[in-house]
């Protein structure tokens, strides 16, 4: 009898990645919602290095870091593989997953916090980063081909979290006009039943963004930007 537990948060893109993978594989698990301002002793015990969610607990053994967890899940549960079989294709998937995580996430995130000239600069930089992904999607519905794969799962924040906050702030970093393939990919992605059940309601996401651990100054800044965007409409 297998015991699978996931320590996560319903509005976290990182814990959402793990839920998508478990769902794709048909794995039953218990979800333990963590409060980032009041972490459980179990979380601190299972992830002493980073003290963060998500943590997957499988038969009592903890695995931390969402990309590491995704590889683990793919190795243990073989239905609906999220990585290709061919070693070179697998390497490409890992490359793009790392690219999304290490390049896209910071570049996109930066655009929430700048205004005026700095925003234009950050938007341009984000655009340079996104261009590679736009090219990578040519002729494909998902990064994984016809079905969702590792890169799609890791890019979840782009499809939903980023676009939701972008819309609320009235920004134009990733639009249908400037990145038509990425936009189409994002629309297909959020409409996938294996995925959309794990996406938090938009208004809820906006209400709790940014997470307090990022700093009160960011929370205040975000609120003022939201208000300005609403007034501009």
């Amino acid at each position, binding site marked *: 009898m297998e015991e699978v537990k996931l320590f996560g948060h319903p509005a976290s893109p990182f814990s959402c990645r793990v839920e998508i993978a478990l769902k794709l594989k048909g794995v039953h698990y218990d979800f333990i919602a963590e409060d980032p301002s009041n972490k459980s002793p179990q979380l601190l015990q299972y992830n002493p290095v980073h003290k963060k969610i998500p943590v997957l607990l499988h038969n009592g053994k903890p*695995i*931390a870091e969402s990309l590491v967890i995704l*590889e683990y899940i793919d190795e243990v549960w073989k239905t609906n593989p999220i990585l290709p079989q061919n*070693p070179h294709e*697998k*390497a490409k998937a890992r490359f793009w997953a790392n690219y999304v995580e290490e390049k896209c996430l910071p570049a996109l995130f930066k655009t929430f916090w700048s205004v005026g000239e700095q925003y234009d600069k950050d938007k341009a930089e984000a655009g340079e980063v996104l261009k590679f992904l736009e090219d990578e999607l040519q002729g494909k519905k998902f990064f994984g081909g016809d079905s969702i794969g590792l890169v799609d799962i890791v890019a979840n924040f782009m499809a939903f979290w980023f676009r939701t906050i972008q819309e609320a702030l009235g920004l134009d970093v990733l639009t249908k006009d400037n990145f038509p393939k990425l936009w189409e990919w994002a629309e297909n992605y959020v409409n996938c039943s294996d995925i959309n059940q794990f996406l938090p309601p938009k208004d809820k996401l906006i209400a709790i963004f940014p997470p307090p651990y990022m700093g009160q100054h960011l929370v205040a800044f975000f609120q003022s930007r939201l208000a300005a965007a609403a007034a501009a409409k």
Partner: protein
Amino acid sequence: MAGEGVKLLGYWASPFALRVRSALKLKGIEYEYQEEDLGNKSPLLLQGNPVYKKVPVLLHKGKSISESLVILEYIDEVWKHNPLLPEDPYERARSRFWAKFVDEKCVPALVGVITKVGEELEKSAREAREHLKTLESGLDGKRCFGGTKIGFADVAIAWIAYWVRMEQEAFKIQLIDQQNMPLLAAWIDYVLEDPVMKEFMPPYDKLVKHTRDLREKLTAVVSN
């Protein structure tokens, strides 16, 4: 063992290229090595890694693979003898976790020691010590990250052994505390003595000079 047209684009001082060279050696794979001039990158490098334009790049059967840890996984999958990663999925996850930890935490702190001055330098050194202490916990009381013998995580992390010693000497700064981190200090000795691991480590004095020059150049920019 014939590598069916395996070529590695690298740079003598790159710890990331070092990882791949060590892995290829452990597997006994024959390959052609091309030393890159980072100030004048070859067309092969620019084509092989158009996204980052960085070494290392592995070329195999006409295809290119970039990012050192991705290359290590590829090598382990294509050439199955002398496996780098353990068989057990949980142990594989642990190996990947620690390799990632080094890249995300130790690398920026160790780079900070080279590129920063004054209080910022002190901060980087402190962070580096903290992260190295955490890294020690990954050994889990064993001789190396792979258990009894060198594995994926050791290959990914081995360069730290060399670079930390080098930075300590070059900048007169303490990063590894024999008393505070006895297991990690022992691992460093073990790795630096291993014939495969040390084969491709850059000549020590050359690396010290290279790093000092780099620091002078970067900190001159900062203070101007």
